[in-house]
């Protein structure tokens, strides 16, 4: 397999967006009959590389060679016609149409302009048989599970003499059984000689199916490895870039010493809390004034844990105690009632209300808690808003500006202010520093330290280990949607230790499921 000639070679690919160098001289090759995992953290350049390959983006530099022929696709349609098919993360099919219609939509077999339905169904059955999938091609796609829908998307993709199949996170919403089903199909296609480019965040899946791994980091190629020759820890290190981080940390302020904050009755004590197909049951305690960090790779279940603790998603398992007494966190309203606040990682969709003003956005949670019949007097609003606009240096400092006009960092600060004025006992911050400039980032980190010194508990979710290490008293490590370890952040804990926990994975600290 490795001796053969690559079907696809990408050489010296560079791609810049305004202000960002998304890909910097990246090489990538793909052999026929292999599953090749493309790995990297958020912003590493995986999506950009795929989009360059499939012609969604053009390149600034570099060449793409497909079967010894230099190609330059101007769009996915053209790429598909040349044999490079892509199944994107979101299944972009029409669930209200039949299976056969979905496979042939836009290129139905026709005669004299009329669709040949019989022919279409026959071809659809043949294609699905190739994937070993026995389903009714006349049934509505929506009546099948996500895994089957995913495979219909694959059937649609490989229909036209595909030589390269790109699967962008096909397993992110599948359960274990469905993943196994998908892998069976992938192996079959691989054995048919199709080259599969597989993107996932699940380490176990990489080691289960991939023959070869290419790692990207910050838009640069880290390396290409045979799966058998790269241990899991090595992979995690290469994705996160440990050596680099160690150097960086020398310049940073010393990490906060672990204190004796974890004493007495915990503020929040959850036992075996979980939600099917989101995160396996986990137990966690958070004390007053304690910062608990959630570490793990993208898609490891960090956000899912945060959402369960706020009631944004409903847990279907486990129980919760707030200050020793049983409590329910079934809805955000209930969680807020227990003094919990939550800043979502998805600022735009789940945080700000873009057309409302900074002032209105800031007072929203407090106003919601009071109920609409008891409006916050305007003078008190102005006081509160002015205080926090100043304290968090929200810019521009105009409370009446629509919040949608502010930069990402300032929007994040508005959201922080929204919760801070409610004086929560526990503040859940999901990626509060993502996508904001370094200045705002440090300000937010300093604020978290201040708040916890003042007695507020903080659950701090971040993709950056460095940040988690610096701020947290305790670190919970997640991997493949399971909480695999909880570490007290003392001298023994460093990025290595956390990476080991991430890499070692399940079975390590036996989490029942």
């Amino acid at each position: 397999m490795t001796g053969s000639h690559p079907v696809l070679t990408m050489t010296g690919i560079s791609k810049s967006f305004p202000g960002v160098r998304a890909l910097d001289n990246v090489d990538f090759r793909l052999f026929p009959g292999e599953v090749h995992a493309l790995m990297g953290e958020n912003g590493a350049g995986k999506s950009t590389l795929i989009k360059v390959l499939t012609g969604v983006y053009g390149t600034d530099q570099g060449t793409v060679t497909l079967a010894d022929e230099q190609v330059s696709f101007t769009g996915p349609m053209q790429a598909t016609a040349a044999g490079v098919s892509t199944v994107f993360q979101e299944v972009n099919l029409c669930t209200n149409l039949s299976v056969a219609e979905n496979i042939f939509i836009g290129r139905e077999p026709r005669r004299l302009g009329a669709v040949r339905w019989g022919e279409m169904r026959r071809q659809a059955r043949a294609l699905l048989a190739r994937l070993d999938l026995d389903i009714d091609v006349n049934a509505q796609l929506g009546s099948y599970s996500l895994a089957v829908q995913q495979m219909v998307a694959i059937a649609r993709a490989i229909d036209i003499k595909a030589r390269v199949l790109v699967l962008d996170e096909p397993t992110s919403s599948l359960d274990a059984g469905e993943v196994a089903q998908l892998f069976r199909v992938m192996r079959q296609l691989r054995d048919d000689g199709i080259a599969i480019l597989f993107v996932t965040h699940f380490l176990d899946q990489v080691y289960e199916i991939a023959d070869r791994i290419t790692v990207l980091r910050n838009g640069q190629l880290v390396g290409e490895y045979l799966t058998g020759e790269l241990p899991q820890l090595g992979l995690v290190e290469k994705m996160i870039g440990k050596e680099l981080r160690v150097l960086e940390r020398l310049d940073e302020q010393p990490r906060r010493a672990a204190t004796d904050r974890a004493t007495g009755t915990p503020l929040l004590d959850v036992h075996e809390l979980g939600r099917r197909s989101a995160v396996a049951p986990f137990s966690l305690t958070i004390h007053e004034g304690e910062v608990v960090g959630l570490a793990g790779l993208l898609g490891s279940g960090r956000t899912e844990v945060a959402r369960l603790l706020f009631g944004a998603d409903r847990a279907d398992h486990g129980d919760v105690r707030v200050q020793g007494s049983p409590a329910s966190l079934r809805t955000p309203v209930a969680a807020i009632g227990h003094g919990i606040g939550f800043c979502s990682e998805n600022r735009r969709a789940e945080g700000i209300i873009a057309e409302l003003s900074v002032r209105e956005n800031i007072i929203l949670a407090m106003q919601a808690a009071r109920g609409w019949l008891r409006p916050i007097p305007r003078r008190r609003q102005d006081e509160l808003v002015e205080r926090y606009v100043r304290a968090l240096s929200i810019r521009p400092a105009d409370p009446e500006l629509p919040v949608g006009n502010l930069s990402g960092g300032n929007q994040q600060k508005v959201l922080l202010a929204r919760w801070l004025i409610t004086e929560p006992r526990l503040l859940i911050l999901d990626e509060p520093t993502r996508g904001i400039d370094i200045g705002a980032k440090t300000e937010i980190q300093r604020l978290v330290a201040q708040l916890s010194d003042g007695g507020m508990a903080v659950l701090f979710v971040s993709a950056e280990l460095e940040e988690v290490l610096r701020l947290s008293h305790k670190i919970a490590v997640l991997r493949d949607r399971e909480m695999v370890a909880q570490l007290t952040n003392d001298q023994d804990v460093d990025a290595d230790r956390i990476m080991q926990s991430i890499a070692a994975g399940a079975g390590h600290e036996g989490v029942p499921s």
Partner: protein
Amino acid sequence: MSNRTAGYRALTTHRLFWPIVVLVVLLAANTVYRPGFLSVQMRDGHLYGSLIDILRLSAPLILVALGMTLVIATGGIDLSVGSLCAISGAIACLHISEQPDQNSVGGVLTALALGLGVALVLGAWNGVLVAVIGIQPIIATLILMVAGRGLAQLITEGQILTINSDPYKAIGVGHLLTLPLAIFIALAAALVVAAFTRRTALGLIIESVGGNAQASRLAGIRSARITFLVYVISAACAAVAGFMMTANVSSADGNAAGLWVELDAILAVVIGGTSLAGGRFSLGGTILGALLIQTLTTTVYAMNISPQTSLLFKAVVVIAVCLIQAPGFRARFARRRPSAAAPAPVTEQPKEQVPA
């Protein structure tokens, strides 16, 4: 000069600038066609004139549109308001017709309470369908839009129910301080709704739910309650409008009362600058929109435009309003004619016409 251009731009980009311009143009066209159009006379202690008529006739539409504004601000829509007008009017008339003395004020008040009560129940029905069961608003309220007509017909037993009650009639055609009572009722309703939304935090919360439902949920807003509430408010507004419509003609016609008023109301809301996608709403804009639509209807009658073409005429004006309100369309238009030399004094004028 630059100051004046800046002022001009601020004025023309104001949300309600173009609806006001259209309203003024319509009034001007009427005046040209019929020079006495703007004159208002005092007769028997009452003011008379086309302007007064427009105000009086637009009162029911303003009422319905006020409730509709709140519904639309949450991202919903209420198609059942026309039927609700018919039902509440029919119930009030039925109760009055059963009184031994149709002129008794107590009887009329009970009738109003009954009509309003039933409307509130039906509004709660809409609210439950949308907020609790989660049916799409357009479908949920379509149920009552269709079924409500039948209900109104059942109440009037398929007849046109005529009453002879002076106190009830006053709601539609009575006068207060030389002006039609209906104007005061609409104005009072507008003030109540304004106070209800802007003096409490209801307005903010409605805009928040309509602007971003998911973010609102995560901020701890119980959006289902708010959604439920706006449908009830909308029904209450429709009920009062229904009283006015039936009082105007002293009879309840289950088939005709409030027919298509929901469409005019939606139009008034949109002309007033509230987005059908929900979010920020403007009660003042809605009132202006309702006045514009009523002026248009009056113009159609006043200019003797034949019934065959009147709907078409209305449609053309509405399309024009919508188009010039759309920034994209104006931008394209402006690019073709770069010399936008509209004299400033003309644009000052309409501002004074707003508080009608």
